[in-house]
């Protein structure tokens, strides 16, 4: 590792209230279940389809935007844990 420069990866905080893929997928699943249940009027079915399309688009968008943020944990003397940035090159420091 000598002479190799360590690059620090910026630690990105996850925005609060961020839409989750899980929720979007569940919404899409609900729509399909309702449609396949066959109890909806044509009007309701179309409205559900439209919201299903929205959920569908959101799913693809979230899959596209997904990212992995890596942090390192350091033990503190009081028995707690604090976070520190994790340098990507650390894992190669064998």
């Amino acid at each position, binding site marked *: 590792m000598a002479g190799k420069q360590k690059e620090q990866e910026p630690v990105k905080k996850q925005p609060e209230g961020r839409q*989750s893929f899980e929720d979007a997928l569940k919404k899409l699943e609900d729509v399909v279940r309702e449609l396949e249940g066959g109890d909806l009027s044509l009007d309701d079915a*179309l409205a559900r*389809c439209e919201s299903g*399309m929205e959920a*569908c688009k959101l799913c693809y968008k979230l*899959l596209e935007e997904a990212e992995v943020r890596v942090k390192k944990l350091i033990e503190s003397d009081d028995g707690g844990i604090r976070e520190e940035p994790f340098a990507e090159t650390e894992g190669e420091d064998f």
Partner: protein
Amino acid sequence: MRDSGGRPPEELIGDAPLLSVSQLTAQIRKQLENQFADVWVVGEISNLKYHQSGHVYFTLKDNAAQLSAVMWRTVAARLRFTLEHGMEVFAFGRITVYEPQGKYQLSVSRIMPKGMGALQLAFTQLLEKLRAEGLFEAARKKPLPEFPRRIAIVTSPTGAALRDMLRILKSRGADLDVFIYPVRVQGDGAAPLIAAAIERLNKNMPELDAMIVGRGGGSLEDLWPFNEEIVARAIAASRIPVVSGVGHEIDVTISDYAADVRAATPTEAAAIVTPDRIELGRRVDNLRSRMGRQLSWRLEAARQRVDALAERGVSQRPLEMIQRHVQRVDDLETRLSGSIRLSLKQNRAKLDSLAARLDALSPLRILDRGYSITTLADTGKVIRDASEAPAGTLIRTRVSSGQISSRVEPSGDGGK
């Protein structure tokens, strides 16, 4: 005994030296301890006693003789397996003489089970012990969340295993916060550190969705911390689901048994914890085409109704309404991707038969059976209550074939 001034009686004097008990014993001790300073002894353990002090006392025996043996606390503490009565062992040590009692014994510094390795035996013993306690029972296992957002990895910060895990996690494409908890994963003292890390994560970061505990491949000795009781117990006690990923496929550790999910390798652990982007994409695709099929089904049904109504000269208004729907359906359909339209095409035959079945249930078929629909002539509104058509109202009645125009007579319930 007669006092003879420290000398033996005359008749016993020969070449033999005269020694006190202490002197003789000291010589025996010197002889034995010199001659048997390093010796391997093979025998069967009996009269086994784990003393409170930590020292272990036992007898080694074969079919013709027996030998007292002791294993001091410091040696016993390093022993990985548990001695058992009847166990065949190879014991290494030196003979020591305990002068006050005139006894000799083997002071054991190393001991190995006969027939299998010490580590292998230790593994088997701990496995049986924890299994008997119910530590590995399926009912104790916690499920992994399907979509984890935050996971921790307890492993060496410098191992190739961590690099591999991070690579996999990134390629899987989940949206994920990964927290690396660096610990030493081999050598004496590693096990308590690993156990402490698991406990600390439970205490300080209970919101974690899962944790991976593991390390890359190595010798059985290298992997040993993951076969230690303290680590197994910490894993079993964790409220955060634990995935173990230790060594290569062929390596199975006690930690694997204690974990909620066992992965064959650290890389596999990373893959198990996170859903796969491609897999998720397929799932969304599948839902989208099912939605598309439903839409298409509705579309066909609506079109058939429009066609049928148009054919039969229905009043314009409901027709417009349905056409509006059809337009909306068309609009939604064009927003679906090409792949879905392809699947729609493939399902065309099925859709046609479904549409035909739907048609059989439509109101138009009901008219065929002799029923009719009456509407107000000016608005086209369907009359459901006689009060909607007071005397003098112009009404139209649709029957199976064509329609009848009429004016309401001032009689019956019309004026109610």
